[in-house]
């Protein structure tokens, strides 16, 4: 079961990748986002677009390859990263 932010991210990814159908209702927030095990079937080029889209939509920069790899593990890790950056005080 996806929480609202995870659902929003799933919808955003579906839109970026031009998937015609909505995310499957049984989609797990822990399912792999990128790679051969991904139910989305995403690869590293898709990941570049997702990183930029997240920055534009949520104003949080994923600015390291390793951070990208960690953050883009699943919808849950991506949503957690966005929440943590939003809660971080400016400065």
């Amino acid at each position, binding site marked *: 079961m996806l929480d609202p932010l995870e659902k929003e991210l799933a919808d955003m990814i579906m839109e970026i990748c031009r998937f015609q159908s909505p995310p499957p209702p049984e989609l797990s927030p822990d399912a792999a986002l990128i790679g051969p095990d991904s139910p989305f079937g995403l690869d590293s080029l898709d990941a570049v677009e997702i990183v*930029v889209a997240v920055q534009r939509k949520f104003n949080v920069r994923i600015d390291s390859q390793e951070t990208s790899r960690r953050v883009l593990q699943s919808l849950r890790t991506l949503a957690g990263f966005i929440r943590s950056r939003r809660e971080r005080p400016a400065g």
Partner: protein
Amino acid sequence: MNPAFPHRQSAHCESGVAANLFTFHGVPVSEAMVFGIGGGLFFAHFPFLRINGFPLTTFRAAPGRILRRAAKRLGIDIRFRTFRDADEGMAELDRNLEKSTPVGAQTGVYWLPYFPPALRFHFNAHNLVVVGKEGDSYRISDPVFPEPVSCRADDLARARFARGKLAPRGKIYFVRNVPAKIDPAPAVTAAIREVCFLMTRLPIPLIGVRGIRYLAGQVASWPSRLGRQGALPHLANLIRMQEEIGTGGGGFRFIYAAFLQEAAAVLEDDRLLGISREMTAIGDRWRDFAAAGASRCKGRDDGNGDFESLARIVRECADREHALFRELGSLVRGGRHAGGK
């Protein structure tokens, strides 16, 4: 394992390994600071040099150069060794570990079994630190991973003596001596000056901002010269070189922006903070290029990803980097930061 070794994950293995080694030896520095002092930022596009069939595009200094330059500028004495014989190479590693000396090593990623299979590829310039030995296994601080990992001796030997391009030849390195006191300011100034020179003043059209402009022309011409079937793989390869190969994103521009932010504190000059913000903004434009290009490769762009539009973004990056490095260069050439070698 040496429990005191400060393992920290990093975006770029060479800078991360150097930062962890220097910190262990009492010189606490960040990955970004090592990258900057090592003169890590660079650009070159060589259409006649091919790797896996694609032109070589690099956003960073040559492998090994960042570590050597950073150590030299900070006065840190590092010994490098390569070996013809694998047994001798492993024995020398063990001799250092017996003295509790962490040892940096150049390896081939493909042969390191702790990498998930999906991430293994034939790249022979991956850096890591061997920090201890337990039985037949080595404890390794690999900056790509969040925690130290273990690797069997025969696997590590295979990785150290991998064959092919950039073959490591068992290369190891370790710190021999660190100055009692280090003033980073001259090192920072000298490194900035070097990068500004290479990016704006080198009279070679394939290097620096000239090289970025040259790349823009190449990108625009790929469809007519290579056809769609040839142009798209070239574009995908360029995006991967920019965003994936340990760059920290934006072709190392984000790491360099972090360095400039730290440099502002070292040189006590807040003007560098503004330049750092502009460097980050330029990194974002490089990333816009990558995203639009990825969309083009996937065939789902809305006309924003045609090759001429992509080339325009690259030209904009060149123009902004030209202005940035000229401003940065004049700042460090000015009287206030004129020191450094």
